[in-house]
């Protein structure tokens, strides 16, 4: 057993759609609503731009959790993108669960541009959940281990 001085911090990749969730994250910033620095945001035009490959790649490279944020259903800037996201991710997450990968490591959350508080709360909650699971062991690529 290794004893490290610093407590374990998870690595979290958040994909945020440009129009709602990325703006929601900005609003969280404007309002100085803190959440852990473990969260690193990647901006995409729409949640429907997120390919399952990106999620698996994040896990391969050492992410412990991946969260997708998009506009609320019905509010997509592109009218229907997040509806496709919803189907794709429902099936993908169910498949990951079927393979025995902890379902808590993946999440989809709808965050509007007005929901800075929700963004921060979601990230706090997600970080805590993933931290309690510990390091991702089931979808890891040993070559990429630090």
């Amino acid at each position, binding site marked *: 057993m290794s004893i490290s001085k610093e407590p374990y911090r998870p690595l979290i990749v958040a994909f945020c759609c440009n129009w709602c969730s990325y703006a929601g994250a900005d609003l969280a910033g404007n309002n100085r609503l803190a959440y852990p620095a473990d969260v690193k945001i990647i901006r995409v035009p729409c949640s429907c731009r997120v390919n*399952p*490959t990106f999620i*698996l*790649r994040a*896990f*391969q490279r050492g992410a412990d959790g991946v969260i997708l944020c998009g506009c609320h*259903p*019905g509010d997509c800037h592109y009218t*229907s993108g997040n*509806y*496709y996201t*919803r*189907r*794709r*991710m*429902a*099936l*993908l*997450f*169910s*498949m*990951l*669960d*079927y*393979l*025995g*990968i*902890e*379902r808590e490591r*993946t*999440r*989809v959350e709808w965050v509007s541009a007005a929901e800075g508080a929700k963004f921060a709360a979601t990230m706090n909650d997600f970080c805590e959940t993933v931290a309690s699971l510990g390091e991702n062991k*089931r*979808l*890891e*690529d*040993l*070559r990429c281990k630090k």
Partner: protein
Amino acid sequence: MQEITRDTLISRAKELLASGEVDRVYGWKRGEFCYDVTPALFTDAESLEKDFEWGDFCGANLSKYLVEETRKSEGKILVFMKPCDTYSFNQLLTEHRFDREKVYVIGTPCAGMLDPKRIRDHAESFTSVVSDENGVTVSTLFDGDVKLDRSEVMPDRCLNCKSKKHVAYDELFGEDGGTIASGRFDEVEKIEKMTPDERFEFWRGELSRCIRCNACRDVCPACTCEKCVFDNPNSGVENKAAENSFEEQMFHIIRAFHVAGRCTDCGECSRVCPQQIPLHLLNRKFIKDIDGFYGEYQAGAEVGSRAPLVDYTTEDIEPSDAVKGGDENA
């Protein structure tokens, strides 16, 4: 009812060739052993007479060959199809993968194929297999004859046949059947009921055998990409041999995802896997989820139907709810 035999099919194929309706025939060709049947193109009566095979080992789904073959000339191709093959045929048409006008489909009846792998479990070094309504008689080189129940040597995909109905044909031999309420999701449910740890161990055990020969992909009638992402160095997922467990999972998850909503559950992937990985259980998971989340959908049942992943309703299930079923004992 007229009995359908190899000769029935050959004589019809010869007629169609002679009349000029078709100029080539995609069928199955016999080889060294009873099960040694290869998909093959026939262009004349003589070779049909000599080599054409129709029987318990004509499991190969010929629909995928049409993608390339129809592009080769303007002539029409006669192709023989079992009920399950016709679903793949329709799915390929839905995706505009070939021109329907260039194909003449003869639907052939199917009582379920036999699986040489399962026969070997009961009879080593076998040379011939005779099946009739009483069962299957396997002749071996060194152990004499072995009598078996047909169900003992049928592959899973035939034991759990979803349909005896031909959903596409120009001409049908034998009577058409209907769709069957099979137990094809039983295995999936069994896995769903395991704890996450058990599920992980189960799949680790199965997928770790993968040798990345790509047979599952290359035989799959839904995998007809001009360039597969796994062969494309720019895709971010390309690799020639799975270096570790991550890559095994990556390959099979992405492949299953790419065929989700398009997979007709023909079972070719599991048939060809040299390592006997039950790949159909991945595809069936998606099919089961799709049926459960978005209403029953059978890929290939109709040409032009909208696959669940290119469709949506405003009331669809949330991803967070989608994974709540099945493992409450976790």
